[in-house]
Structure formats: structure tokens, C-alpha cells
């Protein structure tokens, strides 16, 4: 049977079937394990269709100073679509370089968006946008104390992860690769280690994913969800790509539950014949 292309994005995206194993965060059961960013789409309409196609129930949003340019109404429209599918908003602290800045911005986000959920970003390097672990832990500690539910954007560093959990974060969001780079899961060993050493912690791969196959890989490894933005927003057809990522996340999750076979160093015949080809015996 020939493969068929993804439906054109001009059609209304199909209803995405719900997963069978909801993700529980802060007492909230999420049917979708695909968190989606709302920035950088070609138009507000494309953003809305991408949200529908993704079926996402966590949408990241930001804050900006009022002197900067607006978003052409994208956010207002995205809110409406998000509500239709039971989405929750996850404001971020993008642009913050210190714990102090991040804490102040988080308070503003809570007031404006009416949610205590905060994606905590504290950047330590402008080139890699790598999180500053020391400021991150300091900010998380203070925000948890002030009643926030902190989703920390972090690296795959196990010890930093533990400190963030000790601070009261209910989950970790390690990067796959630098933000917006689309490089996928760069440090597989580190990510596997994090998964193995924190088996009961919700782990969300945040940042760096560029292709649905990478999202599927993350889910196959046992990560609980993925968060991405650029890979969808910058795709040639963002709506189709949102659907493709949704499929990949569900497939990867099912594969994880099904249990991947153990890799072998050598070939292992799958057809149960004897050791010799029976038509070419030397008898």
C-alpha cells in the first residue's frame, strides 16, 4: 500500500486521539505529552491550527516590556484555541540572567496569566543559552517558597536536577540541545543517566528538538513529555509538522511502554530456520 502524505494544512486538523496514560503534574492530568511554544509562527491563524494539530494541553507564553512590538493578536487567539482543548498556560522567564530577575518576572507572570505555573529559565551563557545552574536553583528555591509550581529549564546534569527537586520542583525539563538549534538529543548518555537515576520524576525534554524522530526517541527513552517551539514554528508547514510531532510523541510513548528490544552486537537471525539453508545443503 503506498504511503500517503500528511493532509494539507489548509484543512482543519483532525481530532487527535487522546493518550491512554495521562501525565500528572501538580495534580493536573494531561492527556497530551506534547507541550508547545507559541512564538515565531508565520501568522496567528497558523499558530491556532498548529495548536489544534498538536493537541497540546500545555502552551508556553512569555512576557515583554510594553515598548516592544506586539504579537499581532496571536496570543489572544491562541488562548481561545487552547481553552477548547483544555490547555493550560505555562509562562516563561525568558531573557532572565539572574535569580533575582527571574523571581520578579515570575511574579508578574502569575499576576498577568493567573497561574502559579512558571517555566523557569535563567540563562548563563548568551551563545549557548545554557542555564545557569546556581541561579536556577536559587530562583527555584525562592519561587517554590512563594507558592509557584516551578518547571525548571535545566541541563541533563543529575546533581543539579536533584538540587532542583530538593528545592521543591515537581519535575525537571532538561534540554536536548541548545534552544532553537534543532540538534536533537546531543548527550544521550547524560539523558539516559538522568532517566535511570530519577525513575519517579517527571522529566520533560525541553529545547533543541528539530525533528519528530528526535521527539519519538526521547519518548522511547522514557521521558514523560517534550516541549518544543521552533521545530514547528519554523517548519515549511507548521500545522503539518505539529501533527507529525504529535504522532511521534504518541508513537514513542507507546514504544516505551511496549519495551524496546535489547540491542545486540551481532546479527541474530529472526527467521526460525536451522543453521543451514535447506535447499543448498552439501549432501
Amino acid at each position, binding site marked *: 500500500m503506498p504511503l500517503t502524505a500528511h493532509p494539507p494544512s489548509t484543512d482543519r486538523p483532525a481530532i487527535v486521539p487522546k493518550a491512554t496514560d495521562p501525565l500528572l503534574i501538580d495534580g493536573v492530568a494531561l492527556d497530551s505529552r506534547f507541550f508547545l*511554544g507559541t512564538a515565531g509562527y508565520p501568522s496567528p491563524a497558523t499558530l491556532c491550527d498548529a495548536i489544534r494539530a498538536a493537541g497540546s494541553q500545555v502552551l508556553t507564553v512569555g512576557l515583554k516590556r*510594553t515598548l516592544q512590538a*506586539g504579537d499581532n493578536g496571536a496570543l489572544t487567539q491562541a488562548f481561545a484555541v487552547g481553552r477548547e482543548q483544555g490547555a493550560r498556560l505555562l509562562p516563561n522567564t525568558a531573557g532572565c540572567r539572574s535569580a*533575582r530577575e527571574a523571581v520578579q518576572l515570575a511574579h508578574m507572570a502569575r499576576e*498577568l496569566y493567573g497561574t502559579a505555573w512558571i517555566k523557569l529559565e535563567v540563562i548563563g551563557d548568551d551563545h549557548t543559552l545554557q542555564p545557569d545552574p546556581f541561579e536556577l536553583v536559587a530562583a527555584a528555591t525562592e519561587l517554590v517558597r512563594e507558592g509557584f509550581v516551578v518547571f525548571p529549564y535545566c541541563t541533563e546534569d543529575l546533581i543539579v536536577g536533584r538540587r532542583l527537586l530538593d528545592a521543591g520542583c515537581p519535575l525537571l525539563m532538561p534540554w536536548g540541545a541548545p534552544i532553537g538549534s534543532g540538534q536533537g538529543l546531543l548527550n544521550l548518555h547524560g539523558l539516559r543517566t538522568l532517566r535511570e537515576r530519577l525513575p519517579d520524576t517527571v522529566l520533560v525534554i525541553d529545547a533543541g528538538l528539530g525533528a519528530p524522530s528526535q521527539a519519538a526517541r526521547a519518548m522511547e527513552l522514557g521521558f514523560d513529555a517534550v516541549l518544543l517551539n521552533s521545530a514547528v514554528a519554523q517548519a515549511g508547514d507548521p500545522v503539518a509538522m505539529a501533527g507529525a510531532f504529535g504522532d511521534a510523541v504518541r508513537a514513542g510513548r507507546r514504544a516505551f511502554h511496549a519495551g524496546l528490544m535489547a540491542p545486540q552486537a551481532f546479527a541474530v537471525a529472526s527467521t526460525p530456520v536451522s543453521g543451514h539453508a535447506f535447499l543448498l545443503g552439501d549432501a
Partner: protein
Amino acid sequence: MTALPSITVRLDDRTVAMPAGATLAHLLERERREAAAVATALNGRFVPRDARADTALNDGDVVLFFQPIVGG
């Protein structure tokens, strides 16, 4: 006749003159900003919506307004 005393504050990237004794709530009114549409910071510290009317501005203060935006 003496002029009413005034102060200047930095709002985002510009200077705004306000009468002495003005509050953060007065600045929002002057800028025609809906109170619920922006979050406010004074000298780098968040000022909650319900504290704006009691937050007096001083000469040289730096005020920032923030609003929701798309984000990743």
C-alpha cells in the same frame, strides 16, 4: 506664584514628568494603561496590582510595564 513641584521617572526607555506625590497608579492612568493589562516593576522590583495606588514615585525612579506575549 511658584510652579507645582514635579518629578521625572524613567518609563521603559523614556522620561515622564509627574507631579510630586504621584503614585504608580497615577502613572498607569496617565499612560492610559488598563490596570489589568500590564504588570509593573519599580526599580527592578515587582509591584502587585493592588499595591500600585500606595506606591509613591520618587524623582529618578525606573518603572517598567510588562504585558503578555507569545513565548517558547
